[in-house]
């Protein structure tokens, strides 16, 4: 078991304190809970966990933080622990704070297009709530399973189906309520001045102190999130090509039309798919004419390529299309966990310049072939081709330890390759964080340390994550 953990003698006292805050049912130091919260669905862990606690409100979160400060014991906030890279696991033992009992949707403001949720509200909950109460608005949903929390996703600066148009999901924050590592409740965004959390406000943007930090700077308890128009119709067009090198320019041209809502590149490391790259472009509209017009414009792009080099494809092959038009929460990506009939996959989500896609693809194939593992690529374009999330997907059979080890190795090698290409692994696991920090300019890393020191003088928020 990794991690330092605690001396056993403090155990009962801390457990008693936690149970008195949240109630006996929601605080545990029993081996079963400690085991389940010590492992994630990927290949990280088991890590040492000393306590599990489930607060119901901000007051309880504050009290738990006070207990942690008093005993100098780490806290790791956790949503659904679905990053597959173990970010919801403690690095040095302590308390796992499962946020999913804080599950209220507090406010929906149609006119101002925002929703306020507690930290444990899941993608599934918010999605079906909006569908029922305000079907003309939506939030940018990741392809993660429906139990993934909205807050967990913005903490790791995740992306969703609206990230091409509106940037990654942490750009959609209007405001946060945070319990600082020292216990104060802090309101961030317009809501700290105005009665409403309707935008970030013309203030220093402090939301960045909590996004990308993997819960090492405080516990987010509430989030005001932007909602966006949901069009009535959704369709998908495709482009097939054999030459990988054509992909970046094609993506540039497609985004340049400003007619696409979501853009993916998919492919598999099988013989047939190696020479077959496929771009899917989702289009939306309220009228048939709108969809038809967008389709015509997008079709024209393919016509600009020499005979057959880029083939416009409509309708798109049903199983592929369903991934992009199915009613969220999206099921298809999770199915990768059963590719090897073994309940697991990891993915390195590399944030790369779009022109690096061909090189990144070849690298993934090379690593997978050399290690003898399955590989598929799922690439989502973020912004108007400003960057790409290149997902190197490595499924494995959990019951085959050697296979699990090969996937761990593939992840290490992929992270290294990504950094060499000038990209950065996203939602990086602890080992990859080290690789990143080794490449990081020292002053930048020093600034991170200064921020931690200022916010978290006792170092209680998951120390070890981000090499904290």
């Amino acid at each position, binding site marked *: 078991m990794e991690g330092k953990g605690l001396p056993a003698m403090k155990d009962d006292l801390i457990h008693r304190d936690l149970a008195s805050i949240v109630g006996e*049912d*929601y605080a*545990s130091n*029993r*081996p*079963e*809970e400690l*085991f*389940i*919260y010590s*492992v994630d*669905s990927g290949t990280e862990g088991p890590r040492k966990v000393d306590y*599990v606690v*489930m607060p119901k409100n901000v007051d309880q979160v504050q009290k738990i933080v006070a207990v942690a400060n008093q005993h100098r014991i780490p806290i790791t906030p956790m949503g*659904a*622990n*679905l990053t597959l890279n173990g970010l919801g696991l403690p690095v040095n033992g302590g308390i796992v704070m*499962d946020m*999913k*009992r804080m599950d209220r949707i507090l406010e929906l403001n149609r006119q101002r297009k925002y929703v306020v949720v507690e930290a444990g509200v899941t993608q*599934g*909950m918010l*999605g*079906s*709530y909006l569908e*029922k109460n305000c079907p003309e608005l939506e939030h940018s949903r990741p392809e993660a*399973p*429906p*139990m993934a929390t909205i807050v967990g996703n913005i903490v790791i600066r995740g992306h969703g189906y609206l990230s091409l148009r509106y940037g990654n999901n942490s750009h959609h924050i209007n405001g946060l309520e945070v319990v600082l590592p020292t216990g104060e409740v802090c309101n961030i965004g317009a809501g700290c001045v105005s009665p409403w959390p309707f935008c970030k406000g013309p203030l220093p943007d402090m939301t960045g102190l909590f996004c990308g930090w993997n819960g090492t700077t405080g516990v987010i308890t509430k989030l005001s999130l932007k909602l966006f128009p949901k069009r009535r119709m959704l369709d998908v067009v495709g482009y097939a090509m054999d030459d990988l090198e054509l992909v970046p320019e094609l993506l540039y041209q497609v985004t340049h039309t400003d007619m696409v809502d979501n853009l993916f590149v998919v492919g598999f490391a099988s013989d047939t798919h190696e020479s077959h790259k496929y771009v899917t472009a989702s289009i939306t509209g309220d009228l048939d004419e709108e969809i038809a017009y967008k389709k015509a414009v997008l079709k024209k792009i393919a016509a600009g390529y020499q005979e057959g080099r880029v083939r416009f494809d409509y309708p798109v092959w049903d199983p592929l299309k369903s991934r992009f038009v199915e009613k969220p*929460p999206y*099921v298809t990506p*999770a*199915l990768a*966990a*059963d590719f090897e*009939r*073994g*309940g*697991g996959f990891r993915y390195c989500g590399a944030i790369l310049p779009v022109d690096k896609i061909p090189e990144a693809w070849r690298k993934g194939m090379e690593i997978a072939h050399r290690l003898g593992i399955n590989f598929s690529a799922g690439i989502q374009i973020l912004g108007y081709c400003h960057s790409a999330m290149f997902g190197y997907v490595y499924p494995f*059979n*959990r*019951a085959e330890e050697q296979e699990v080890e090969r996937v761990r190795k593939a992840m290490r090698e992929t992270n290294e390759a990504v950094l060499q290409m000038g990209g950065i692994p996203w939602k990086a696991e602890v080992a990859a964080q080290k690789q990143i920090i080794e490449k990081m300019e020292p002053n930048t890393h020093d600034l991170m340390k200064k921020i931690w020191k200022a916010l978290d003088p006792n170092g209680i928020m998951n120390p070890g994550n981000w090499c904290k």
Partner: protein
Amino acid sequence: MAELDYRSLVHRCFRCGFCKLTHDYSPVGFNCPMYHRFRLETYSPGGLNWLIRAALLTKSIEWTDHLSEILYSCTMCGNCAEACRFEFGKDMVNMFRQAREDVVETQLGLPKMVSQFLENVYLYGNAFREAREARGDWAAGLPVKQFADGDEYLYYVGCVGSYDSRSRKAARALASLLLKASVSFGILGQEEECDGNEVRLLGEQGLFERQRDRNIEKFKELGVKKIVTLSPHSYNTLKNDYSGEFEVLHYTQLLRDLIRAGTLPVPQRAVGKVTYHDPCFLGRHNGEYDAPREILDSIPGIDLVEMERSRNTAFCCGGGGANFYTGISAKGKEQASNARVWDAVNTGANVLAVACPVCLMTLEDAVKSEGIDDRIIVRDISEILADNK
């Protein structure tokens, strides 16, 4: 088709959590009763799979009393099997049952109340440690006769309908309806034995087989061909786990047919707004969603409204898998039944109709403990049809 062995399946669970929700992601709440109750990841189907694997297969954690409680907190309602997006998911309930079988076989240790339940069935032939002689008392004063060769149906009441004071009323109501419709039937009275549905789900396969074999022998001896059950739990096991020699009906199926044929009149009195709670062992486990609704629809004084979670997304009452007796999941403010009665109240209904003695018991208790008995009452469909107030 032969059942797959849980040992070859549990590691395929990814703990993605689809199983905690309804198939259509209802915003009403989590649809796994044990997760709803406890909220720790251990008490979720995924958590259970990983604990089973760690404790029974890879032996990376030890067996403890707490682990045993977690394993038996599952009500076997089948929501996980319905909601899981993976191919193996349909076997989820079987996986949990098989793991329990291993626990029983290797004597790892059961929760006290589970052992007691099994012991009761073993010693007394019923779940409640009640006298065998009292099993037929529910029928006192009714002109119901002992089953004899030549009767068309055996009316099999089950343990809950036979002994629980509230459920006995439903047992009586059903008997009166069968009499009213001149159905040829008889009961076993004190000769009736536990059907073994929960025993099997608790993993005591040996005891289940004893119950099954005894019952089959008795049924054959008496010349039973058709069985109508009060409880969906009995219906489930008699239909699916017995020898297949008997035609088994849940009572709602028989009453539906009688109403269709015009042999059973329906009450004409205004009942009001009624919502129907699908019992897991009639609905999800056996796909019967329509018969109870058809009955309720046929009553002119009923305005039938649906709860948001209904049919295959119905939320379990929390009493399945013997939890009505063991109380592992069925305890405390957060227990499933309390949430379920609010589902019903939120439809605006004044009657919550059920078709299962376990649901009748748990949901009526919940209505009382939530203090809403002035807003909604719980009635078995047999009672509504018999026009019992």
